[in-house]
C-alpha cells in the first residue's frame, strides 16, 4: 500500500538496425515482495481472493447504482432506461430525490468537501490540544501554512484594513463636525459681542439691587469662553434681549455712548445711548443794550425762513458782541444799518409780490375772453353740420322710395310672363295628344283590314308553312337519334380501347385513348363520369401507364413479400439496427403461412394478400396491405402506389362503363 504505483525504468539497448527497443523492468524489491507475499499466503489465497472479489463487486455495484442515479437525474433518456431495466433502480432514485441529489452541482460538492475537510482539521487540532481561535480570524500558529491558512491570513488582513478605514472615516467625520460647530459659534460670537455688555449690566443691576459693589469683569474673561459655551449663550441671546431693554432704565448712569449713525428705526444697542441732540442756541437776555434783529422780522418768519436765519445769525453776533462791551458801541451803528436794510428788503419783497399778483389777474382775464370767442365759433359750425345732414337724409329717403316702386313693377311683369308661358304649354300638349289619338285610330283601322286580308288569301300559306315545320322536326329528331347512336358507339369503342390499353400484358401509356374517351364522353351531360375522367386525366397515370395485374402479382411475390417478411418482427417505433438484424435472422425460422389465415401480424397479412392476388382480387389485396404500418408500410409504398394507380384507373373505367351502358339503354328506350 505504500508503494502505490510501480516505478518503471527504461533501459535502452544498443541500436540494432535502426530500431530502438525499449524494455521495462520493475524493481527487484517489488518482485521479491510479490514472491514473498505469494510464498506466505498460499493457504489464504482463496479466502483473500474471495474477499477481494466481494469487495470489488460491492464497490462496483454501489458506484454503478449511485453514479447511475446521478446520471439519471441529469439525463432523461438514461433516466427512463435506468428506471425500467435495472432492478432496485426506482428505490435508489426515490432515495436520491428525497435527499435532494437531483439539485446537486459540482460547486456544492466542492463546498461540502471543503467544509468537511476544514471541520475535520479543526476538530483534530482541538483534540490535539492546540488552541482553536474564532472562526473569523483563523490566524495560523503553525509555521507550516497550508492553503486554507493562507486564505484566512489574507482575509484577516483585509478585515483589519477595512476596520481601520472605518475608524479613520469616523474620526474625520467627527473633526469636520467639530469644525463646523466652531465656525458657527464664531459667527454667532461676533453677533452677540454686545451681549457681554448685557451680562455685565445685568450683573451690575443685580449688584445695585443687592447693594454690593460691582467689580467690572475684564473683557478678557468673556472672550475665553469656549466654543462649547458659545452655543448655550447663543440660545440665551433671544432671552436677554428684552432684559437689557428693561435694564436700561434701571441703570444708575449710562456708560457707553453710541456715536455711530444708526439705521432708521433701530435703537442703539443695549448699554449705549444716543448722543445728546445739539443744544438749541440760547436767546439773549432781554436786558442787553444791543438791538435784536430777530424780533424785527418775526412776522416774516413763516414765509421767509432765510430772513429769520439771517436774523438769528445777526443776533448771535450781537450776543457775542455783548461779551466784549468795548466794541459794542462801534457795532451799534452797523447794527442799525443792518436792521434798516433788512426791513427795506422785507418791504421790497412785499411790493414785488403784489405786482406779480396783478399781472396774473390780467392774463387770466385775457384768456377767458379768448375761450368764449372760440366756443361761439364752434357752436355755429355744429349747427351748420346738423342742417346739411338733414337735407342728406331727406334726399336718400326719396331715392329709396323710387327704387322700391321700380322693383315691384318688374316683379309684376315677370309674373305675367310666366303665367302666359304656362298657358301656352298646356295648349300645345292638348294639341299633341289629339294628334296621337287620331294616329292610333288610323293604325287600328289598318290592322283590321290586314287581318281580313290574311284570313282570306294568306291562310293557305300558313298551312303550308306549318307542315314544313313538322317535317323539319321529324328530320331533326331522326338526325339526333342517329347522332346519339354514333356517340354511344364511339364511347363504347373508346372505352374498349382504353380497356385494352390498361389490360395489356405490358405497361403502356394510354393518353391518346383517354383523350378520345373524354371527347366521346364529354358530349353527354354526366357529371360523375366527367369527374372521374377529369381526375384520371389530371394524374400522371395515362402518361406512364398502369402495371398489369400479372406484373404486380409477380413483383409482390418475388421481391416485396420477402422484403416485408424480413422486416416483419421489427417494432413500430424505436427500431434500431439490432432490431432489424434480429428480425432478419428470425424471420428465416418462421413457418410459412398460406391461404386465408386470420390474424393482425405482418406475416398473416402477407399471406392473405398473396391469397387474394392469386384470386386476381387486387382490391382486397391492396386493402389488406394498407393495414400494415411502420417499417413494413414503408417498404410496401411503391407497390401500393402502383396497385392504387391501377385500381383508380379501373374504377374510373368502370364508372365510364356504367355511364355508357346507361346512355345506350336510354337511346334504345327513347326511340
Amino acid at each position, binding site marked *: 500500500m505504500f508503494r502505490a504505483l510501480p516505478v518503471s525504468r527504461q533501459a535502452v539497448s544498443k541500436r540494432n538496425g535502426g530500431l530502438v527497443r*525499449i524494455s521495462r523492468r520493475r524493481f527487484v524489491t517489488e518482485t521479491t515482495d510479490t514472491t514473498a507475499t505469494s510464498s506466505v499466503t498460499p493457504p489464504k489465497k482463496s479466502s483473500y481472493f474471495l474477499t477481494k472479489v466481494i469487495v470489488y463487486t460491492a464497490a462496483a455495484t454501489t458506484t454503478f447504482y449511485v453514479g447511475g442515479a446521478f446520471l439519471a437525474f441529469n439525463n432523461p433518456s438514461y433516466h427512463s432506461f435506468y428506471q425500467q431495466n435495472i432492478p432496485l433502480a426506482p428505490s435508489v432514485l426515490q432515495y436520491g430525490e428525497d435527499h435532494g441529489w437531483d439539485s446537486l452541482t459540482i460547486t456544492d460538492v466542492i463546498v461540502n468537501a471543503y467544509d468537511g475537510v476544514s471541520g475535520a482539521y479543526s476538530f483534530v487540532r482541538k483534540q490535539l490540544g492546540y488552541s482553536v481561535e474564532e472562526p473569523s480570524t483563523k490566524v495560523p500558529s503553525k509555521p507550516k501554512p497550508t492553503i486554507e491558512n493562507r486564505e484566512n491570513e489574507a482575509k484577516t488582513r483585509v478585515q483589519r484594513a477595512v476596520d481601520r478605514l472605518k475608524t479613520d472615516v469616523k474620526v474625520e467625520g467627527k473633526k469636520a463636525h467639530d469644525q463646523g460647530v466652531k465656525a458657527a459659534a464664531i459667527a454667532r460670537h461676533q453677533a452677540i459681542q454686545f451681549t457681554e455688555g448685557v451680562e455685565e449690566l445685568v450683573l451690575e443691576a443685580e449688584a445695585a439691587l443687592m447693594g454690593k459693589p460691582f467689580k467690572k469683569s475684564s473683557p478678557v474673561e468673556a472672550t475665553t469662553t469656549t466654543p462649547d459655551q458659545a452655543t448655550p449663550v447663543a440660545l440665551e441671546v433671544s432671552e436677554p434681549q428684552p432684559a437689557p431693554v428693561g435694564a436700561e432704565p434701571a441703570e444708575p448712569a449710562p456708560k457707553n455712548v453710541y456715536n455711530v449713525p444708526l439705521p432708521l428705526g433701530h435703537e442703539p444697542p443695549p448699554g449705549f445711548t444716543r448722543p445728546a441732540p445739539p443744544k438749541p442756541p440760547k436767546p439773549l437776555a432781554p436786558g442787553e443794550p444791543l438791538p435784536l434783529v430777530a424780533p424785527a422780522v418775526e412776522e416774516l418768519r413763516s414765509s421767509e425762513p432765510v430772513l429769520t436765519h439771517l436774523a438769528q445769525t445777526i443776533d448771535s453776533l450781537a450776543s457775542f458782541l455783548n461779551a466784549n462791551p468795548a466794541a459794542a458801541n462801534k457795532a451799534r451803528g452797523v447794527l442799525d444799518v443792518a436792521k434798516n436794510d433788512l426791513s427795506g428788503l422785507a418791504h421790497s419783497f412785499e411790493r414785488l409780490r403784489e405786482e406779480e399778483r396783478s399781472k396774473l389777474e390780467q392774463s387770466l382775464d385775457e384768456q377767458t375772453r379768448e375761450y368764449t370767442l372760440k366756443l361761439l365759433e364752434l357752436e355755429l359750425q355744429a349747427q351748420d353740420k346738423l342742417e346739411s345732414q338733414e337735407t342728406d337724409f331727406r334726399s336718400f329717403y326719396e331715392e329709396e322710395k323710387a327704387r322700391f316702386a321700380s322693383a315691384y313693377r318688374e316683379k309684376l311683369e315677370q309674373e305675367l310672363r310666366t303665367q302666359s308661358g304656362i298657358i301656352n304649354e298646356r295648349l300645345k300638349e292638348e294639341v299633341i295628344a289629339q294628334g296621337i289619338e287620331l294616329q292610333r285610330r288610323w293604325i287600328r283601322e289598318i290592322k283590321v283590314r290586314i287581318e281580313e286580308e290574311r284570313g282570306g288569301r294568306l291562310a293557305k300559306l300558313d298551312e303550308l308553312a306549318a307542315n314544313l315545320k313538322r317535317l323539319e322536326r321529324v328530320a331533326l329528331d331522326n338526325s339526333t337519334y342517329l347522332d346519339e347512336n354514333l356517340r354511344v358507339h364511339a364511347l363504347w369503342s373508346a372505352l374498349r380501347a382504353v380497356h385494352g390499353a390498361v389490360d395489356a400484358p405490358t*405497361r403502356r401509356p394510354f393518353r391518346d385513348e383517354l383523350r378520345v374517351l373524354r371527347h366521346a364522353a364529354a358530349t353527354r351531360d354526366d357529371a360523375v363520369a366527367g369527374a372521374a375522367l377529369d381526375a384520371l386525366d389530371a394524374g400522371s397515370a395515362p402518361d*406512364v401507364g398502369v*402495371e398489369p395485374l400479372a*406484373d404486380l402479382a*409477380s*413483383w409482390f411475390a*418475388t*421481391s*416485396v413479400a420477402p*422484403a*416485408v417478411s*424480413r*422486416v416483419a418482427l421489427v417494432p413500430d*417505433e*424505436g*427500431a*434500431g*439496427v*439490432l*432490431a*432489424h438484424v434480429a428480425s432478419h435472422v428470425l424471420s428465416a425460422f418462421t413457418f410459412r403461412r398460406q391461404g386465408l389465415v386470420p390474424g393482425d401480424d405482418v406475416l398473416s397479412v402477407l399471406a392473405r394478400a398473396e391469397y387474394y392476388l392469386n384470386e386476381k382480387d387486387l382490391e382486397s389485396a391492396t*386493402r389488406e396491405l*394498407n*393495414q400494415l*404500418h411502420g*417499417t413494413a408500410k*414503408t*417498404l*410496401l*409504398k*411503391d*407497390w401500393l*402506389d*402502383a396497385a392504387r394507380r391501377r385500381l383508380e384507373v379501373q374504377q374510373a373505367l368502370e364508372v365510364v362503363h356504367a355511364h355508357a351502358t346507361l346512355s345506350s339503354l336510354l337511346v334504345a328506350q327513347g326511340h
Partner: protein
Amino acid sequence: MASLTPTPASPSKPTSSEDIVAQKYDRCLADLLVKSGIGFSVGVVASVILFRRRAWPIALSTGFGAGAAYADCDRSFNPARIAGVRVLQQPPQESK
C-alpha cells in the same frame, strides 16, 4: 419470369421502396468498413507516433470507428435516435 423493375417512387432514388432496408444495410456495411478503416489507420499512426508501438491504441481507435459506424447505422434505421428529434405521440390512425 423476370420481374420488371417498376418506376421509382421518387426520381432521386433509383430503387423501389421495398429495397430500402437492403440499401440501408449496404450503406451500414460500407460505413462500418470505411470508419473502421479510418479508425484503424488513425490508431496505427497514433500508436507509432505517440504510444510507442503498443497494440491497444490501434484496437481502441478501430473500436471508435466501428462504434461511430454503428451509431450512424442505428440512426439511419431509427430516425428517432437522431440528436434533437422528438417523436410526438399521435392518436392511432384508423386503417382503410
